[in-house]
């Protein structure tokens, strides 16, 4: 019950090597191949969005489970909680985009003489862009910090008021998150294709974030189990994680298809430009995206027995995580970098560097407190969970 994650020096060193090595190789690649500024900044944005999405999706996971009075996740709750501690780092990284605005957000270079952009500039202008960014992060960071704090208090105190408090906070968070995740995806990703718009886009990105965070929760569970922690984890918990990954991958595919079918069907040039940009030159990636994010989790996790096997679920999770990296790449790169986009050493090693940073922050937070929240009123239920 008092097991606590030990952030050993071995882990620290591996992660530092990942971070330093990733940055070093990326810089070398950029200098050697003279990678365009737009591609570099597009990569910064891609990784920012990927890891921000993982943190926010984890916060959403926790909030939804709290509000729906779900008990099964209780022995795992510290994992997504720890993932949300990356948000302040994500904030700083997103602020850095200021220096590369002109390279990826073509609307920031707008100088007049365009009927469409003339209207949009009331929303798409640099000052307002960053004011909104600060607003989003202020809400996300403060609400997740408050939720985390109430949870941690339950380790030492058994006062039910902390549990009630975090339920109410979860409600607030869900409302704030629902609105801001949609508008932030308009700001940060949709505006890359400045003349394009799609009402479902916010929800599509939202669910993509959730699936991505699920894959990380699953892989983290696998890692901790292998390292000897999470003694109370049963196949029943793994099955529920598997069910979530399975069903939300299908839901993501449904949203992807809704957007694609409707734009394909009506064939309006203002809308089809989005897919034409991605199909011309990046066709294989476009279809691999579907196969990896739909076909593999669907066939791989359809059987109940496969959902109960942590090794298998973690493998599928890893594949789906790479698949969603590709999905972000497809959303961001063709628009930001145009024909200079590609998947090469820069992409791989920048992601490795970011991953190292993310896992470092995660492990540090995970190690600060015990892995189980002793006085959680649903703990007993979760330990005896049978599906």
């Amino acid at each position, binding site marked *: 019950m008092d097991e606590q994650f030990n952030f050993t020096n071995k882990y620290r060193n591996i992660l530092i090597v990942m971070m330093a090595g990733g940055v070093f190789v990326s810089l070398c690649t950029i200098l050697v191949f003279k990678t365009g500024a737009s591609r570099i900044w597009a990569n910064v944005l891609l990784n920012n969005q990927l890891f921000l999405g993982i943190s926010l999706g984890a916060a959403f996971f926790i909030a939804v489970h709290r*509000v*729906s*009075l779900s*008990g*099964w996740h209780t022995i795992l709750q510290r994992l997504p909680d720890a993932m949300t501690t990356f948000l302040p780092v994500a904030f700083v990284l997103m602020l850095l985009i200021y220096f590369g605005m002109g390279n990826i957000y073509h609307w920031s270079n707008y100088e007049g003489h365009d*009927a*469409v*952009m*003339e*209207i*949009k500039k009331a*929303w798409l202008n640099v000052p307002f862009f960053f004011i909104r960014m600060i607003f989003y992060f202020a809400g996300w960071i403060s609400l997740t910090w408050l939720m985390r704090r109430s949870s941690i208090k339950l380790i030492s105190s058994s006062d039910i008021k902390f549990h009630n408090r975090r339920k109410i906070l979860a*409600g607030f968070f*869900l*409302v704030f998150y*629902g*609105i801001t995740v*949609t*508008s932030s995806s*308009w700001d940060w990703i949709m505006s890359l294709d400045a003349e394009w*718009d*799609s*009402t*479902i*886009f*916010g*929800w599509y990105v939202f669910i993509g974030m959730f699936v991505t965070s699920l894959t990380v929760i699953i892989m983290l569970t696998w890692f901790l189990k292998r390292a000897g922690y999470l003694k109370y984890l049963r196949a029943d918990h793994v099955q529920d994680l598997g*069910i979530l990954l399975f*069903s939300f991958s*299908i*839901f993501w595919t*449904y*949203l992807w298809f*809704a*957007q694609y*079918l*409707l*734009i394909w*069907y*009506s064939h*309006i040039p*203002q809308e089809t430009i989005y897919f034409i940009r991605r199909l011309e030159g990046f066709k294989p990636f476009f279809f691999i995206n579907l196969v990896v994010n739909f076909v593999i989790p669907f066939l791989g996790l359809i059987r109940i027995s496969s959902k109960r096997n942590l090794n298998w679920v973690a493998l599928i999770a890893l594949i789906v995580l790479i698949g969603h990296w590709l999905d972000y790449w497809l959303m961001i790169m063709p628009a930001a970098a145009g024909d200079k986009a590609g998947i090469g050493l820069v992409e791989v090693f920048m992601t490795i560097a970011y991953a190292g940073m993310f896992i470092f922050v995660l492990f540090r937070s995970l190690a600060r407190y015990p892995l189980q929240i002793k006085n959680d*009123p*649903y703990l*007993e*239920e979760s*330990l*005896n*969970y*049978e*599906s």
Partner: protein
Amino acid sequence: MFQSPLRKPLIEGTKSYRSITTDIIDPMMNKPGKLWYFGVTLSGAAMMFGLFMMFWTVWQGIGTWGENRTVGWAFEITTFVWWIGIGHAGTFISAILLLFRQKWRNSINRSAEAMTIFAVICAALFPLIHLGRPLLTFFIFPYPNTRGVWVNFNSPLVWDVFAISTYFTISLIFWYVGLIPDIGTVRDKLKKGFKKSIYNFLSFSWKGSARDWHRHEITSIMLAAIATPLVLSVHSIVSMDFATSVLPGWHTTIFPPYFVAGAIYSGFAMVLTLLIIARKAMKLEDYITVDHVESMNKILIATGSIVALAYIAEIFISWYSADEYEYYNLVNRVTGPYNWAFWIMIICNVVSSQLLWIKKLRTNLAFTFFLSIVINVGMWFERFVIIVISLHRDFLTSSWTMYKPTIVEFGLLIGTLGIFFTSFFLFIRVFPVISIFEVKSIHRISGEKKGKDLISNE
């Protein structure tokens, strides 16, 4: 399986398995009260009025409706989408809540599923009567014919046919499969006679064998697993009737999930309308507790908020798209001649359910009942706003016109309400309104009086 002490009991009072059976079957077997007669007469009258209006439509023609060239769809398609939406709550409760292991669904799923079937029947009437020549309805099905043509599989209207037929079929068999053990219970409670042989026939010789239960459980879970994407797909396909067009206000990618969220929203409101009355009239307060109502209200907040979020997305993107037609559609909704419908929609759909954040209101049955009707009115107007406002003023200003419904169209709406409620009143007299075996199976863990007190003394 352990349950946290924080959880409130799902079955209140001291119950044995026998008392669960009698509580649920007695209202069905005893003579109906005055309230039932009153209800059935009222809804029966509405139904007859509606059936006559349907006959009148087919006999006289679609000219008896208020549609014109510009506004080719209005009342009927609104009511059609509204009914399909209402039906979705039943499948959501039966299937999705089963997959999410929400045990509180066990006492409401039977009536919710029945509601789905009646709602889909009401909805399916509209495609039949809105054709100029209803006798040729069979044209919609792909069979080798002497005309040498096939149906247009590319059209969302044909997708609708497949979607709604599948939805009706699967809902019906899901409902019936769940009913079989309970029909067995009713059969065994009856004395010899005509009634007993009918139930005997309908019970498919159910004997409660362990192997049969095993298969029954697995089939139920599998049906739930396929009904979940089905429910998402049906209303998405219905939304694609509009979204695949190029009309401002219709062609927007958010329609599929937005319609599904709205459907669950109005469906749960209708379930609440029905069950708040039924639980009182049939004395089932111990099974459909205030906590059940509160849980359903939470789903109302969630889906209502998703609908509100969709409105925000639509409104913002209308402006952001810098498309003058799209933007005008928004302006027309807010300030045009039908803006009263728009504001009814906003108040009834968005403002109303946000009140449920207050716990006192969430657990107040009278407020919930009133709110559930308000929400359904709002959701009817939402479809009206989407359909009529986008149609009556689109690209060509010389085609702009107004739409006025006729008495025949009102009659059809009232008629379907009559069909729906009459069917529900009949249903509660014929089949157990609560799933008896599912309630018994959660009694040990979630009943108020747990453990050894379950032994009946009779």
